[in-house]
């Protein structure tokens, strides 16, 4: 699957899928592949609901987005601990779930399983104030109000004592502590000798003393009493937190259901936004055996790259009615690989539960999708590129789930053409004889044998006549050469008997500015070969 994903350049497209919640983002990382029609129907239904929501109520959809962005990450399956941040996170979750339930339309809520069941819990967590913060208010425990009242009174008393002590120090010693907890007094400062035990002095360095006020008995007594009350307060708060944690843990199934609904809603809306921004459409799944068909299929990374260079992009529109096994031939740079990549991207997006970049895409639901060919990377060391291709193919072919899709791009390109053609012909036969295999094989090898259930197609290639009229000589710059090729290459497919030989390679070499003497000589050699 990794090789298929890489070939399909799927990560570039998935960069447009941007869930807003930690749960949606985690779901994205799963890279789920659906091979069940009911599951896919459910996914598409959610995207449709998301699209309807965004189109009909854009401001409500914006509010939903606000709530989703603020959904906190709770550890799934973990119990709530009796501490203030766990309670806060749960309160935040409830606050935003409640907000979502208020703005998401009823049908969409039902589709994602949203049902607000926690008004009492929400109110209980909000005793210290609504919104997204959590405070252990007096209302949680009768004893807290009295205790905190006493602590407040003590705080006032302590501040009064502190101010009185500071005032006394200022009056007697001329020292204004203000809000400072200590002062640095140079040796010889009168306060060092005359402090009358109002100060605690410590040497700071050889010429300076650190001076701190010595608190009187009243201050110390108030302070001690405050410490005692704070300990009692902590004891009551811990008890409240334990009760709250128990209440949350008792609701864990409901909270887990909220998280599942948030995840579904987040992913549905993110896929809907992606569909709108990239102009995606819903694919249609056919029963196994039917022909795959595409209208306006776009390979998104290539479309973007060509647009950036001011080059034209030709979407893929074709019905592969010739058989389950399609062999695509064509000249170099003619678009064979792009056809396969486009199909790969469309199929993978469809089976990952996304809409696809095509005006229409009719396909089969596969149990597995496999790629072998140019660029495949394997874990096995010590193999040549041909060896890697074979290894990758064998691993995929050994899997017996059906129906499945194979994409082979320039398979066996690095071996001699006679053996490669033979190997490919045998693969075509083997695939064709297995009613559960669909395959698209891009190759430049000619003379391949057809089999029942297979069909040959050809990229139209360079428009030689138009090229001859307009080309004045090879382009000296690569960008210009690519533009010339792009302008004169016909990126369309045609059904073919598989016997057509294509001779665009030398023309492309000329456009790219290859040594003219060598290309002329090559043309001559070809003429001689044909004559003989």
């Amino acid at each position, binding site marked *: 699957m990794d090789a298929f994903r890489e070939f399909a350049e799927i990560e570039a497209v998935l960069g447009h899928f941007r869930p807003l919640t*930690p749960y949606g983002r985690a779901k994205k990382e799963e890279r789920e592949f659906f091979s069940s029609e009911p599951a896919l129907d459910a996914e598409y239904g959610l995207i449709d609901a998301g699209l309807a929501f965004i189109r009909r109520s854009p401001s409500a959809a914006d509010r939903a987005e606000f709530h989703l962005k603020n959904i*906190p*990450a709770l550890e799934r399956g973990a119990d709530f601990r009796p*501490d*203030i*941040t*766990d*309670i*806060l*996170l749960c309160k*935040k979750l409830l606050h935003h779930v409640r907000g979502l339930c208020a703005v998401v339309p009823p049908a969409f809520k039902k589709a994602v399983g949203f049902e607000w069941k926690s008004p009492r819990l929400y109110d209980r967590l909000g005793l*210290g*104030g609504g919104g*997204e*913060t*959590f*405070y252990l208010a007096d209302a949680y425990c009768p004893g807290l109000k009295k205790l*905190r009242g006493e*602590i*407040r009174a003590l*705080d006032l008393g302590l*501040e009064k004592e502190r101010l009185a002590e500071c005032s006394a120090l200022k009056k007697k010693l*001329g*020292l204004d502590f*203000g*809000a*400072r*907890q*200590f*002062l*640095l*007094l*140079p040796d*010889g*400062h*009168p*306060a060092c000798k005359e402090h009358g035990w109002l100060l605690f002095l410590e040497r*700071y*360095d*050889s*010429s*300076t003393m650190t*001076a701190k006020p010595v608190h009187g008995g009243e201050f110390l007594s108030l302070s001690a009493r*405050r*410490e005692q009350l*704070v300990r009692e*307060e*902590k004891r009551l708060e811990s008890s409240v937190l334990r009760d709250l944690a128990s209440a949350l843990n008792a609701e864990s199934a409901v909270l887990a259901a909220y998280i599942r609904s948030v995840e579904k809603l987040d992913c549905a809306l993110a896929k809907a936004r992606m569909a709108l921004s990239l102009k995606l459409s819903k694919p249609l799944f056919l029963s196994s055996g039917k022909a795959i068909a595409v209208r306006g299929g776009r390979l998104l990374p290539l479309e973007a790259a060509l647009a950036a260079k001011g080059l034209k992009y030709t979407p893929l529109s074709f019905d592969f009615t010739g058989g389950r096994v399609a062999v695509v031939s064509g000249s170099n740079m003619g678009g064979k690989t792009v056809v396969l990549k486009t199909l790969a991207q469309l199929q993978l997006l469809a089976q990952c539960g996304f809409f696809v970049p095509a005006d229409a895409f009719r396909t089969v639901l596969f149990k597995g999708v496999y790629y072998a060919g140019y660029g495949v990377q394997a874990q096995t060391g010590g193999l040549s590129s041909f060896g890697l291709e074979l290894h990758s193919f064998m691993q995929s072919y050994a899997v017996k789930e059906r129906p499945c899709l194979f994409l082979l791009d320039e398979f066996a390109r690095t071996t001699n053409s006679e053996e490669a053609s033979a190997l490919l012909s045998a693969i075509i036969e083997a695939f064709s004889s297995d009613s559960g295999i669909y395959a698209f094989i891009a190759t430049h090898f000619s003379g391949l044998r057809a089999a029942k259930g297979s069909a040959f197609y050809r990229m139209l290639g360079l428009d030689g006549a138009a090229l001859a009229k307009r080309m004045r000589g090879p382009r000296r710059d690569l960008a210009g050469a690519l533009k010339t090729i792009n302008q004169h290459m016909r990126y369309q497919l045609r059904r073919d008997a598989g016997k057509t030989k294509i001779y665009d390679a030398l023309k492309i070499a000329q456009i790219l500015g290859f040594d003219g003497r060598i290309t002329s000589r090559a043309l001559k050699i070809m003429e001689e070969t044909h004559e003989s």
Partner: protein
Amino acid sequence: MNIEKQLKGRLTFITGSAKNAGKTTFLNYALAHLGGRGTAFMSVGVDGEQHCSLTAIAKPRVAVRAGDVFVTTDAMASVSDAALEAVQAFPWKTVLGRIGVFRAGRPGFAELVGPETNGQAAEVLAFLSSLEGVDTVLVDGALNRQTQAAIAEGGVVHVAKVDAQNFTSACQQLQLLAELSAVPSPGKRRTMRVDGALTAERAAALPEDAGDVLLEDYTKNFLTLAQWRRFASGRSVYFQSPFNLRFIVPVLNEVPEKEFCRALGPRAMRLVAPNPFLERKN
């Protein structure tokens, strides 16, 4: 120098020349003048604990006032006596618990624990700055975390411990900071960009006709004062992110103040705020 005016309504990083330079003490002083009125603060690393875990030197706790917003962990919040309201919880957990933002309901004390990475610190700062009612943010950096100071657009207060042993090097370092703080941003000037650290080797390797030079920020300078002066003479140097050094707080130990002023020189002395704890002889 009006310290409150320098800090109010701004983001300020409190950096120190070394551990136990006096950053938390200065933070407490600043909060006493600013606290409870739209002020948020955090540390980078563990601070406020009663003893430094590395040196066992006694450290002051952070005094909080009603309304103060600050960053610590759930475990530290549970032992604070300031009747805390939980405002935000981040997904990162440290050995001391999950990082969160809290608001004090009454005066008390707290132990600050901050995020562990620059990215986390930036996220927390963004949250604090977005809080309604918060207009002043102070960041107490542990050790010499000047890199953090370069992340966000904030100013720096540098607390410098100067004693008899490090007197020369400390004064030179402060002079260097003063000179770096005068380096402007390039505007639309064409400059030669030097990415990464400016070491003596790299400085020597620059062509003589390199023209105006652009560095990322002051933390990328690894030249000594003398090396910097040689490098900067005869060319214009710019910082992509200028160094906004608000002021320097010297913590002198066994160093007479007059000697310190003389060694620092008038340019750097312009940036020196008097030690707010030093009571002068009448």
